[in-house]
């Protein structure tokens, strides 16, 4: 399944049956599924009542093919298993630290049904690819003036081979993720960079 062009250098696409873990619940998890959603895949978001639907729509997720299960409660694993059978991508934040059997069972389910399981916010043993945000800078805010414009992040993808890292605008000036090579930084309108974090 395709991913957004900005993310291609990190991972070429989402392979069916794969489990991917993302360390934050926000823009990165959304950007990861936006490519598939744009191309007609159904997505389900389980256990994320704070999921920013508006931001998802801006980054390319199709709201017509989005299912939200805000509070799956105790039977979350069963809910995810049912959804993996029907939709292409399931974004999940398990309520607590999941047990090893649950992790194994759901990973096997994803493999069998050819669906992608994106686990956000919680470490997931069975993940083939792990994405992390290692640095993040917001631009556009002054000292009492301006407004947030975009965020420059460094994302690291760890999988089987050598880890890959990439600078991204997440979100970019128009709300969609864009690559942030040095050239893009020059092209970008002059903004006040205020905060740097590691």
């Amino acid at each position, binding site marked *: 399944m395709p991913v957004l062009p900005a993310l291609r250098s990190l991972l070429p696409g989402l392979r069916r049956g794969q489990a991917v873990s993302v360390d934050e619940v926000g823009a990165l998890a959304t950007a990861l599924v936006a490519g598939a959603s744009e191309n007609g895949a159904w997505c389900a978001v389980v256990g994320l009542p704070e999921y920013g639907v*508006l931001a998802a729509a801006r980054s390319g997720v199709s709201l017509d093919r989005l299912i939200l*299960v805000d509070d799956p409660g105790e039977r979350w694993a069963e809910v995810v298993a049912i959804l993996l*059978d029907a939709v292409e991508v399931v974004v999940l934040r398990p309520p607590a630290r999941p047990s090893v059997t649950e992790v194994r069972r759901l990973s096997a389910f994803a493999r069998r049904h050819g669906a992608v399981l994106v686990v956000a916010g919680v470490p997931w043993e069975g993940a083939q690819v792990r994405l992390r945000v290692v640095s993040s800078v917001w631009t556009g805010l002054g000292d009492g003036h301006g407004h*947030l414009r975009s*965020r420059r992040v460094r994302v690291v993808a760890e999988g089987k081979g050598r880890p890959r890292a990439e600078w991204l605008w997440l979100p970019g000036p128009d709300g969609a993720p864009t690559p942030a090579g040095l050239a893009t930084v020059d092209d970008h309108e002059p903004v006040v960079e205020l905060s740097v974090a590691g």
Partner: protein
Amino acid sequence: MSGARTLVVWCPDWPVVAVGADAGTPAAVVSGGRVVACTAAARNAGVRRGQRLRDAQRHCPALDVHAEDPQGEARRFEQVAAAVEVFCPRVEVVRPGLCAVPARGPSRYFGGEQVVVDLVRDAVAALGVDCAVGVADGVFAAALAARQEPAGAAGAGVVVPPGATAGFLAPHPVSTLGVAQVRPETAATRAEADALVELVGLLVRLGIRTLGEFAALPAGDVLTRFGTAAAAAHRLAGGLEPRPPATRPPGEDLGASMTLDPPVEQSEPLVFAAKSLADRLHSDLAARGLACVRVEVEVATEDGRRRSRLWRHDGLLSSRAVAERVRWQLDAWRTGEPGDPDALVGGVVLLRLAPDQIVADAGRQLALWGQNMVDDRVERAVTRVQTMLGHPAVTRPVLAGGRGPGEQVLRVPWGDRLEPRLPADGPWPGRVPDPAPAVVPPSPLPAVVTDESGRVVSVSGRSEVSSPPAWLTVADGSPVAVTGWTGPWPTLEHWWDAVLARRRARFQLATADGRAWLLLVDRSRWLVEAAYD
């Protein structure tokens, strides 16, 4: 074939009557900025149906305006229908305000059409509702006859003798063709109403002004030149019946049930039984040209308890699909919490499927490329999750209007249709600028914003910040240094409503850990409305 003898009860200005307006005072019911119905007093002042509200109020400044309430109209009309049903059991409600009954049976039983008319009039008048009654061949002619009755007078109803209907109709203008139409509320009925308005306009332009002149045209030519809808109208104009009244004898049980002896414990045989019951139910409904909106699954167990659950059907489910729902339902009942008194235990002795809310099966047309169809697989999975967690647990997002990020998204339970109350694409001055935050907690989190010296930052009534924010503490977390900030963006929302009114100010903050926040100051309390990470 000329129409069967039909008695029509017409309650004039029903939408206004249903909202409880008094006929003596000027009042109107308005939908989409236009007058739908008005009282006699308003009519005398110059208010007309279809008029714009602004014009109506110019004619009659004292006009009492009510919003349209279709459910309320139907509910109140149910009383009238019930009163009529006492004398003539097969009542067909054409639309709230107009109902028809076959007149032949009751008139023979009570000894004459005039007697039935008087009985019905008295029964409806006893409810305190003004009505007019007409009897003729067919619903359309009877409705026109009812309109002939002088309003308000203690009239005796208008009875058009059998066979004289065509002559009775002939002098009426063609614009009366729509009097016995159903309410234009769905897309299909609205299209029908529009087509009729167009036809009437066309006939008038062609110089055909009365029903008699229209009826005099050869039926074949009307069909070939104007289409099937016009052909039906042509039959009406000639005093014929376009369709027989779709009545149903009361108390007919269309459900299908099966008694199981000995009681059955396993799901498989029950699902198998459900499949054959669903087959029977569907063929019974299809034989009558009907479909059901919902199907009720009822199960009785050995211990004498009965459980039932409604499933949406809309005439779209196959027998297999119904059987599958029975399986899920049984599973859900059996696998309740341990010790749950409502859990299904023991063998099942009775399984019953009953249709709920019967409608005429109008058939359905699938979109050419199937765009509007939700993937069957997805639909099934979502329904299963809903069985486990309850109907509102699975939602789909709809964009709505609003200023804050939380207000701009509605979560609509899967399977429900809900239009946002406020349009998403309207101008929203004061809307928080893009980008949209990626994390929007369902309810705002408490926070504390302090300045360098540790005092809480406050905003004055004139939107002045006491001192620049330096530290942010979210909920129970530790303080983080603020690296950039902007605001306050004051909003004064719903100032016209004492309950909803709120005066707030928004801030955007970037913090040293690389995150950014949308904060809200409400009565000098800081709240995190959203986070941008």
